[in-house]
């Protein structure tokens, strides 16, 4: 089977057993790989109602057919599990080379089940699978684990690990990849911690067969040339994702003070130019990508920040900056470094700290409750509360549950400023100024996710995405046409990019990874004859499978909602006066469900299931 090793590895940590299972071509063609494999496996093999932190939950690490290539972020993987944060389907993508490394060991996917009696780590090579004692690693930061396991193994081993936050079952603990790449969202690190699995090390040399290597090579060459010469990726190359900060502020979509505002007065201290001037120490890229969007940072004063742990991307700058009113680039980078070392998702951490600050400001949490004086924009307080969350110390224990559960626990009206959808903290794009993103947050299978659908901004020009029928411009603040746009781009950008896998950035118009080229790449690697229509149908199938998983867990239309704060008008900036009222969201949901072929309650109809070759739960 081209593009695949054809084998899944299953490790049962309770029994200490290791099994392999063959993949058949029908399964691979129907789900492609990555997130598609993960959701299908969980849907088929996980009983409804399972506690995400129990041994019964499954943790799936899945590569895709493009993972063996060094092609625009394709070497990454998806990590899929039932999320402890949302208790629904959860997935988080991990860039770097980890998908390729898993394939090099001979496996397209790794399924971890059960829970070890004491801390362990997995060592995978192309000749063996070993469950090893991790007693000496438990309690260590991701950087310490990286250092110990790098010394213990020969050069070239890639290392996935969790920090103390994962061990302490912080609901938004992340998984580190070589302490430079992170599967941040939805608490995959907590699932790993619950399994007593501290790390996975991998190194292999197995080749994955490619059906038409020359055609694939030519396509990659063509796309690389365009990336380097057509100007579409220039600002991403020069500024990294920091290219978002200034424009988001200008457009009035930059979450500020826990989404109370959408512009930040001190933007000049933290925008792309400020970060490049003050703390940038170069860039880093995923294998085979000529863009190099990842920024490395370095500082000695007032905080020492090592370039070893990468640097904050846009989402992190905004979450640990304007969202908590912090205007100090070095302090933001330090907060990012602490999150990386302790193993915390930076978006959820920032939004949770902002929630706690608003609780403090409104007198709902006192200094005594918090064990500290937590005020907006105070770098020392922010660094202290990050540690308290990671180690569940004092008030950090309740904040480690995420804003949904924390607000339910604290009460006193704090639910009103707990900014989440389905339990997942809202990322760094205020949806009032982007109506499509509002609907995408409400309907994404994993909760508020900024990478689940293409952003409204890219459709403000002509011929944005003709392959999907988008020729005429659509204003970002308009409602009209957004339900269909969200549906189509959820299937393509949200799902299929993580199934192949491929980086989403070069897929965003006007960049050169057009849908037809993705189909070509898939066919060149696998030898299939997939059409664009079939390709998009696979995306739709995977999305609906995720929805079915959630429906089986009790989710329905009532969860496809946004926080009340978004029905209040934004106070200033270029999105001033914009709202998403419940009535407007309900109208979009009606239209969106129609396009999806779902009932008014948000459940896929029999006809839809038949069309997508799916079965009702």
């Amino acid at each position, binding site marked *: 089977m081209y593009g695949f090793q054809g084998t899944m590895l299953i490790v049962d940590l309770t029994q200490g057993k290791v099994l392999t299972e063959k993949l058949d071509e029908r399964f691979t063609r129907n789900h492609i790989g990555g997130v598609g494999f993960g959701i299908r496996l969980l849907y088929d093999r996980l009983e409804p109602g399972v506690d995400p932190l129990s041994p019964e939950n499954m943790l799936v690490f899945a590569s895709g057919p493009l993972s063996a290539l060094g092609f625009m972020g394709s070497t990454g993987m998806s990590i899929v599990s039932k999320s402890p944060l949302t208790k629904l389907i959860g997935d988080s993508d991990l860039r770097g080379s980890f998908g390729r490394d898993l394939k090099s060991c001979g496996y397209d996917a790794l399924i971890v089940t059960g829970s070890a009696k004491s801390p362990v780590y997995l060592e995978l090579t192309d000749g063996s699978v070993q469950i090893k004692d991790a007693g000496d690693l438990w309690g260590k930061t991701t950087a310490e684990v990286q250092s110990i396991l790098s010394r213990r193994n020969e050069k070239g081993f890639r290392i996935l690990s969790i920090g103390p936050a994962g061990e302490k079952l912080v609901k938004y603990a992340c998984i580190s990849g070589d302490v430079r790449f992170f599967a941040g969202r939805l608490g995959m690190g907590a699932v790993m911690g619950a399994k007593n699995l501290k790390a996975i090390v991998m190194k292999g040399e197995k080749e994955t067969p490619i059906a038409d290597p020359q055609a694939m090579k030519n396509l990659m060459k063509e796309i690389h040339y365009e990336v380097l010469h057509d100007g579409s990726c220039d600002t991403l190359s020069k500024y990294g994702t920091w290219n978002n900060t*200034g424009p988001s502020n200008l457009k009035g979509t930059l979450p500020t003070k826990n989404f109370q505002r959408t512009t930040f007065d001190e933007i000049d201290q933290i925008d792309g130019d400020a970060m490049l001037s003050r703390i940038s120490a170069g860039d880093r890229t995923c294998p085979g990508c000529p863009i190099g969007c990842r920024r490395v940072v370095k500082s000695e004063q007032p905080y020492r920040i090592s370039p070893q742990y990468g640097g904050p991307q846009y989402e992190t700058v905004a979450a640990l900056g304007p969202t908590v009113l912090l205007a100090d680039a070095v302090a933001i980078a330090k907060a990012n470094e602490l999150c990386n070392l302790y193993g915390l998702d930076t978006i959820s951490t920032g939004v949770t700290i902002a929630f706690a600050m608003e609780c403090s400001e409104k007198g709902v949490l006192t200094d005594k409750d918090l064990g500290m004086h937590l005020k907006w924009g105070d770098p020392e307080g922010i660094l202290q509360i990050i540690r308290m969350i990671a180690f569940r110390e004092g008030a950090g224990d309740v904040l480690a549950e995420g804003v949904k559960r924390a607000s339910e626990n604290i009460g006193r009206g704090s639910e009103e400023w707990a900014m989440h959808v389905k339990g997942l903290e809202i990322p760094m794009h205020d949806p009032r100024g982007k109506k499509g993103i509002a609907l995408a947050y409400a309907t994404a299978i994993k909760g508020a996710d900024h990478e689940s659908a293409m952003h409204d901004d890219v459709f403000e020009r002509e011929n944005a995405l003709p392959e999907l029928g988008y020729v005429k411009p659509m204003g970002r603040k308009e409602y009209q046409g957004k339900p269909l746009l969200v549906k189509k781009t959820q299937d393509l950008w949200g799902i299929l990019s993580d199934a192949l896998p491929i980086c989403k950035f070069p897929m965003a118009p006007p960049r050169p990874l057009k849908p037809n080229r993705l189909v070509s790449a898939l066919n060149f690697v696998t030898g299939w004859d997939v059409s664009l229509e079939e390709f998009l149908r696979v995306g739709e199938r995977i999305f609906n499978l995720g929805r079915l998983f959630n429906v089986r867990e009790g989710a329905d239309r009532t969860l496809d909602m946004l926080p009340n704060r978004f029905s209040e008008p934004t106070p200033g900036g270029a999105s001033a006066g914009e709202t998403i009222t419940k009535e407007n969201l309900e109208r979009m949901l009606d239209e969106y469900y129609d396009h999806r072929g779902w009932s008014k309650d948000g459940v896929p109809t029999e006809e839809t299931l038949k069309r997508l070759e799916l079965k009702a739960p």
Partner: protein
Amino acid sequence: MAVTVRFVSVFRDLGVSRRLFVVEAETLEKTIDELEVQIPGLKEKLVDSHGRLHPAYQVIHTKGNRQGLCSKLDCPIADGDEIVITPLISGG
């Protein structure tokens, strides 16, 4: 016909960061032509090979309290207007 122009998160290599430019122009095309005198190399980046505004950038046009996009080079610009040139953002 004084028009002010700012650049946000673009063309740092051309030395435009944090600088305010003032030009005399009636259209976006004229504005870019005038800017090219002060910022050599700008036009090549901002206008694509088809002679259109490069799709990787957005031109945000503020006229009084109203903000809109200039998506074509013949977009009219008036005295006192502000132009901000930014990258087209697509999620971070």
